[in-house]
């Protein structure tokens, strides 16, 4: 609940951002990303809650993550997590993957997003860069049907093998707990 009386001027906010170490770090990382991969590669750059977030295209993701891991100054050795996401209303960008990387040396986190159409959910695998990516990609495949090319063993991981749909997509809403058209007649016999 923001107090309107305590609202600061934009100049004060800019000054605070300048003195904020995370903002400075993020600016450094962003500059490095731009110099390594080109400015046009990244769109939609912002810092929600201090975490640098960039959106890129799926053609670049493997190159970017590999570059970040092998970069001598940044040393993003730690793939924190990755997960799929589904926005049914975004035409031709219905599915997405979100990657969180962490540089343990400098304690910088970065979040990278890619979006792609539901009809063509193909993304390059990262399991050749990080061994940790193996199961996380299987999980994303299991829940969103995202296909990772080059993955050594792309099978369902948490759900049963013979399932023929991808349950975390928004087209499968959870059942309304208050519905009354069902009978519990045979429940708990």
């Amino acid at each position, binding site marked *: *609940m*923001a107090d309107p009386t305590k609202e600061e001027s934009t100049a004060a906010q800019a000054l605070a951002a300048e003195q904020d170490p995370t903002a400075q770090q993020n600016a450094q990382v962003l500059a490095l990303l731009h110099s390594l991969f080109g400015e046009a590669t990244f769109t939609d750059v912002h810092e*929600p*809650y201090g*975490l640098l*977030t960039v959106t890129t295209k799926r053609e670049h993701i493997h190159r970017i993550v590999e570059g970040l891991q092998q970069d001598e100054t940044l040393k993003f*050795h*730690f*793939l*924190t*997590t990755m*997960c799929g*996401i*589904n926005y049914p209303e975004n035409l031709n960008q219905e599915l997405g993957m*979100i990657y*969180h990387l962490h540089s*343990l040396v400098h*304690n910088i*986190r970065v*979040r990278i997003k890619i979006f792609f159409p539901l009809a063509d959910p193909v993304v390059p695998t990262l399991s050749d860069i*990080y*061994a*940790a990516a*193996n*199961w*996380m990609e299987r*999980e994303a495949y299991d*829940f969103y049907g995202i296909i990772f090319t080059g993955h050594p063993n792309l*099978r*369902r*991981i*948490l*759900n*049963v*093998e013979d399932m023929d749909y991808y*349950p*975390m997509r928004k087209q499968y809403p*959870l059942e309304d707990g208050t519905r009354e058209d069902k009978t519990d007649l045979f429940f708990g016999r």
Partner: protein
Amino acid sequence: MAVNDALAGTHKIVEEAREQQGGQLVPTLNDFSQELTTLNLGPTHPATHGIFQNILQMDGERIISGVPTIGYIHRAFEKIAERRPFYQITPLTDRMNYCSSPINNMGWHLTVEKLLGIQVPKRAQYMRVIMMELARIADHLICNSILGVDTGAFTGFLYVFQEREKIYEIYEEVCGSRLTTNMGRVGGMERDFTPVAIEKLRKWLKEFPTVMKEFEAMFNRNRIFMDRVVNVGPITAEKALNYGFTGPNLRAAGVDYDVRVMNPYSSYEDFEFDIPVGTNGDTYDRFIVRNEEIWQSLRIINQALDRLPEGPFHADAPHYYLPPKQAVYKNMEALIYHFKIIMGEIDAPVGEVYHSVEGGNGELGFYLVSDGGRTPYRLHFRRPCFIYYQAYSEMVVGTSLSDAIVILSSMNVIAGELDA
């Protein structure tokens, strides 16, 4: 799926054996030494500490490959969370790592507070630290004592299980429940520590070190125990990082990454403690690192309890923090907020936030995407078990079955956290 299909190409010895037998795995009397055994370890085997299956291919006593199958208790928490208001997600987090559910609860509440921008008062933060460290001790006690059981030493387990019981009594005094604690609220704690709780805590802090010392004396330099665990299932620091290890398993390999120190939350920066690290990441190091962490957690609890500040135990956040029950009966505002919070009728701001805490097993992260509705648009749990368990199949190759059990035990794989 056929077992042999799953194992196809997994290991060189299998390939060689297949070649020698002309593509058949059926042994003849001549190549009797080449007979491979397929052993299903689990899904429900007492030694697997939960429901997961390992299909081990064995050459005599030696494991030549292992294929883990998980998902037996998958409960679709991420999907269920998309329909639930923030408060109703707390019981879901309880059931992930059920050995240390307060940490999961606090992690979730910290994530929501980050999204909402709520400042929690110091007293509540210190109380959270105390509960989280208690949970960490309970988690490590279980892991280490069961490791003892798996190597054939039952006494240590009995010693420290009593202590876990006492920790659960403290939980009970603080929040009313023992295993799935549902502790804390968005904005602070559900209620203040009672004098009885503090008295119990102080008594336990005084008595526990003796038991812990006895436990350590029983194991740390025990010849039989060391024979079973030293150099069993070692993993290098590079490999551990590449596999996404966190927590005691990573620190045993020599990397001093601890979320509490690197990205302090809930006033961890106020306390003095060390990060114990191992050297070669074997089962023994994991055991020792957990034991040391128990001592460090005790240090933190002592500091927090001694310096417990006075003041409110929750933030002034009427939109999210339930009003006291007595006020609900007398005060219209309180009644309205109570109703709105219980029915989940308060919208969250738009935003996305990642917050992580140091769970019993490592970095427990919550990635929350809010589209401005009452429920998360997407909630992803970074479950440390899920990420590092995939290294297990590599760690067991070349060891024996009894080693495989010990490695699994020392990694502290919790089925609830693995599957979620």
